[in-house]
């Protein structure tokens, strides 16, 4: 049975689903959201309709016409089943393939329906989420991740505050500020902890000549955001960050400071700004738990893939931010390659998608240059005080983390979690893992090992699920290679 499961319906997952479907493969596309698009194409949830809707593609149009439509990535091919509002909580190996366990229905409700779907190939496109660095007061209501500000503005039409400071690093801060303005907020300041993003805008010609940058569309997009911020007279300061939020029950003001090259605050440079919200984004962390459950090799925090987006696990492909932070265009190109490769793996006749593969190569060069320009530097650790919360779920302070590390022999993540409590809460170290590992000087890799990939209730775990279309193990022996 030629069926693949794609997990995640952002740019990578949608492209993968379409690429596989156009080769005649049956695709199940699973996503947590109600509408397609993921975090990047975040659709307005209150507006009616779905601009990626499968219904836009009727099943009786010619294959050529549907291929053309699907390539525009705004519609799904008819042989894609989109499972919305679904939490994938486990992947397990079965003879000849994989079994994917999910709960479908209202988020965290008791009335979700259990499903178990089997497939010979998987495409993982689970994306990434914002990294937030801790600082005194970051646990006050009114401090949000940049992604939260973006999601609420684009998806719900709500600004997270009236006077917002945006703090972090990288070009993503610009669209976040633009979305907040669009939702009616006033941006008090955009604080970029590294050098100004606008430096990129003045150099694209030089960079293109040397081959270091290939992200033409991206620099054009940034120029538009920069123009919008200039029109609204938003102060944009480089080598600056919010190092403290003040307030009793919620944010009332913040302290920003100049940073030196390692992000240590420059003494005497502190300024107090009146604000009721802070949006913080220091790059992104990939959602690795399903890749780890599928036994994919992970190096330096990302899933290792070959030229066909194949991971080290047979029949498991990965695309998008899981393989490296590179943005929506690169994710979609990787998805197209992964979908074609997965289709070939389950036996479809597939020509190598050479154009998408070329886009992946150039996209990765651009992403590498961008990531090198906007790293997280170690001076952030100096923003913390003894009583600053480092693990939000378990309310572990920096002092108690250090005490646990000093008093016990903590060499790895598991021991660190058990003695300090950091990372043991409901988020399972998603928010604090990288930060706590850096503070305690241990390898952060173990934080993403989560046998239950998404918290479910015990009653749900106990429930029996019927397995849909189980794999025919004999047939699965005929899987073809994906060597290009």
């Amino acid at each position, binding site marked *: 049975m030629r069926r693949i499961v794609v997990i995640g319906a952002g740019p990578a997952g949608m492209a993968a689903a379409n690429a596989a479907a156009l080769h005649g493969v049956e695709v199940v596309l699973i996503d947590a959201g109600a509408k397609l698009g993921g975090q990047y194409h975040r659709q307005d949830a209150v507006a009616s309709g779905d601009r990626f809707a499968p219904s836009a593609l009727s099943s009786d149009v010619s294959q050529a016409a549907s291929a053309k439509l699907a390539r525009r990535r705004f519609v799904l091919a008819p042989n894609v089943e989109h499972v919305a509002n679904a939490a994938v909580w486990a992947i397990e190996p079965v003879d000849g393939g994989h079994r994917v366990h999910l709960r479908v229905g209202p988020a*965290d409700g008791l009335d979700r329906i259990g499903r178990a779907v089997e497939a010979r190939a998987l495409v993982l496109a689970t994306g990434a989420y914002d990294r*937030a660095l801790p600082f005194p007061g970051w646990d006050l209501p009114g401090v949000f*991740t940049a992604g*939260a500000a973006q999601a609420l503005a684009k998806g*719900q039409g709500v600004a997270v505050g009236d006077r917002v400071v945006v703090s972090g690093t990288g070009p993503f801060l610009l669209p976040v500020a633009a979305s907040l303005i669009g939702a009616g907020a006033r941006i008090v300041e955009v604080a970029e902890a590294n050098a100004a993003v606008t430096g990129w805008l003045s150099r694209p010609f030089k960079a293109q000549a040397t081959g270091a940058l290939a992200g033409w569309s991206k620099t054009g997009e940034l120029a538009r955001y920069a123009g919008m911020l200039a029109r609204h007279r938003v102060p944009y300061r480089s080598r600056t960050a919010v190092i403290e939020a003040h307030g009793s029950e919620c944010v009332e003001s913040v302290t920003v400071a100049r940073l030196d090259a390692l992000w240590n605050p420059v003494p005497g440079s502190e300024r107090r700004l009146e604000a009721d919200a802070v949006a913080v984004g220091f790059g992104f962390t990939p959602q690795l738990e399903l890749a780890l459950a599928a036994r994919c090799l992970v190096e330096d925090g990302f899933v290792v893939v070959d030229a066909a987006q194949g991971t080290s696990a047979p029949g498991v492909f990965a695309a998008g931010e899981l393989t490296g932070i590179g943005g929506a265009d690169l994710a979609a190109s990787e998805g197209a390659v992964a979908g074609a490769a997965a289709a070939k793996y389950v036996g479809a006749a597939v020509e190598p998608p050479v154009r998408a593969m070329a886009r992946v190569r150039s996209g990765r060069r651009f992403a590498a240059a961008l990531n090198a320009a906007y790293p997280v530097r170690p001076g952030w650790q100096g923003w913390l005080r003894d009583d600053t919360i480092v693990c939000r779920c378990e309310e572990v302070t920096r002092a108690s983390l250090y005490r646990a590390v000093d008093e016990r022999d903590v060499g790895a993540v598991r021991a660190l979690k058990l003695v300090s409590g950091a990372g043991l809460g409901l988020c399972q170290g998603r928010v604090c893992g990288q930060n706590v590992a850096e503070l305690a000087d241990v390898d952060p890799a173990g934080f993403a090992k989560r046998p239950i990939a998404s918290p479910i209730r015990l009653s749900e775990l106990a429930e029996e699920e019927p397995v849909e279309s189980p794999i025919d193990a004999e047939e699965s022996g005929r899987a073809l290679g994906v060597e290009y």
Partner: protein
Amino acid sequence: MRVRFDGEEVEVQEGQTVAGVLLAKGIRSWRTTRGGGRPRGLFCGIGVCFDCLVKVNGVPDVRACQRVVAEGDDIRTQAGAELPS
């Protein structure tokens, strides 16, 4: 469409999340922590951090940023660790 938040009737639109409804009303926090009893509300906005927990129809620990409102939902603030009622 209408829901109740801590007993008070609120007019909502289809597709809104609990967090979207509460933030639009200017409500910034809707639960307290188990340890310090500190106020919390939305943080990551995309279902990752489990900070925005709220009680919906008697079921605690529902992520307000992920839960889409349904007609007649009874939404309540959550204090510390709560058991289902």
